[in-house]
């Protein structure tokens, strides 16, 4: 199946000479949730803005549903719903009016039943006649999502959808996103919260300094880069790791009561059994143990920090 969004060799240089994007190549598969991760200023919002028609590209080509975003912008943009990062809303219109306005703007005939469904799904139905200015930040965020969904898009861009949103609402939003995916909508979200990508995404792309440095299945990424750590709590304080155990590259904590062993889950032999028996031979007794898997966050930090 051809990708629903195809970005090829995309570059963007701002008037100031700042190169925000540099030779981006990216394909988004229909129906997936794609998380775009990157530090502040990496180019996430610029990339989204170009795909959605808010910023001009400097070089390269972008197609949405096979339609070029410049030469066939009507067809391309009709497929997209955008929820930008900032809370840009009208103030004095009612929720109902602003969501209906969005539907019209995207060239769709009136459909009160659909607007009603969207508002109900986002728990905004009882606020439909309220002026937007009277709503809380979390509700405004949902109004923006409702606007983006008003014209039944096939692709939904969520730029930092849960920034500044409380935990409960964040979970609620994830629920909405999952329901949308189930109905066949392709979702691209950018986020600072790795937890969010880890929770939601099928695939993850990491962007840094205007370049895509990695695109991978979430599971594959976790497995490929995921390290496991075994932490051993010792019964008695140890001054130094015995020389016999040097091959394990153990780390000893400052108080001499904990030993950390890094191992690879993919390796045929993790070395845990032999480590335990060697420790025993060395007379080191263990009171407890603990294993942890590196999170996407650790992976991300190590990727972005790499030169």
């Amino acid at each position: 199946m051809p990708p629903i969004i195809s970005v090829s060799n995309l570059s963007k240089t701002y008037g100031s000479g700042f190169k925000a994007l540099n030779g981006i190549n990216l394909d988004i598969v229909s129906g997936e949730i794609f998380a775009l991760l990157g530090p502040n200023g990496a180019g996430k919002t610029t990339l989204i803005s170009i795909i959605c028609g808010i910023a001009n590209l400097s070089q390269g080509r972008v197609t949405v549903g096979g339609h070029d975003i410049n030469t066939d912008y009507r067809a391309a943009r009709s497929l997209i719903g955008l929820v930008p990062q900032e809370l840009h809303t009208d103030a004095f219109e009612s929720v109902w009016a602003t969501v209906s306005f969005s539907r019209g703007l995207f060239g769709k005939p009136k459909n009160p039943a659909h607007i009603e469904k969207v508002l109900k799904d986002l728990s905004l139905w009882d606020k439909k006649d309220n002026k937007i200015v009277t709503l809380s930040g979390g509700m405004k965020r949902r109004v923006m999502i409702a606007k983006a969904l008003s014209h039944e898009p096939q692709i939904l861009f969520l730029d930092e959808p849960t920034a500044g949103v409380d935990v409960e609402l964040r979970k609620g939003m994830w629920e909405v996103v999952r329901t949308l995916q189930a109905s066949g909508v392709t979702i691209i979200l950018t986020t600072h919260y790795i937890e969010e990508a880890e929770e939601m995404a099928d695939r993850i792309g990491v962007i840094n300094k205007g370049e895509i440095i990695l695109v991978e299945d979430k599971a594959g990424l976790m497995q490929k880069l995921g390290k496991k750590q075994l932490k051993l709590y010792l019964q008695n304080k140890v001054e130094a790791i015995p020389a016999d155990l040097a091959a394990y590259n153990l780390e000893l904590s400052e108080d001499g009561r904990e030993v950390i062993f890094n191992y690879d889950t993919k390796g045929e032999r993790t070395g845990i059994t032999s480590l335990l028996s060697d420790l025993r031979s060395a007379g080191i007794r263990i009171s407890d143990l603990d294993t942890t898997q590196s999170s996407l966050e650790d992976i991300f930090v190590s990727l972005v920090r790499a030169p």
Partner: protein
Amino acid sequence: MNFHAIRAIYLFEMARTWRTLLQSIVSPVVSTSLYFVVFGAAIGSRITSVEGVSYGTFIVPGLVMLSVLTQSIANASFGIYFPKFVGTIYELLSAPISYFEIVLGYVGAAATKSIILGLIILATAGLFVPLQIHHPIWMLTFLVLTAVTFSLFGFIIGIWADGFEKLQMIPMLVVTPLTFLGGSFYSVNMLPSGWRTITLLNPVVYLISGFRWSFYEIADVSVTLSLGMTVGFLVVCMTIVWWIFKTGYRLKN
């Protein structure tokens, strides 16, 4: 053509008008009535007729034009500036809508509003002075052309402005003086010849002259010239708008 989008923008902008009815309609009507009281009744009673028309009656077309010009600019500039200011412009830029359609929605609504306003002021004037309109079709033509042209001009200002100060600057410093000096309250022929020549550089003179001709068949310059200048200014504004959208000036970075 994305008719749904044009309709959505148009209705959205018109809704803003109804919501701010006091500011949109009532205040211009009140200020125009004040002009009638001050210039028409108080001062006008001491001025004999101008070119065969009583002074109070003479100033009616100029007053209507004054309101139509300033309101067209104010409506259209605010209409497009505000989404830029609060950020909702993102939606307009990401919608499957052509620039022509955006302009049609915004300028159409701004012009509609100022035409309605012009007609209300005309009706208000009818309460103060006897009115006659010799060429109603031409009167409407000039009214519509002026409303559209200056709504386009306002749209350009709204795109260009990057602060509320700039939004006010052109109407305050350029349009209001040009309107006052453009023969709203006097006939250009009343001026000494040197000043008359300078005044003819003011585009508003042609608008008011043509408009006044459609009422009383008296004009400072020929009607054809008035029409030509109005259409000329319309074309200039359309060209600038076309350029703005072609380059993304102040809209897309």
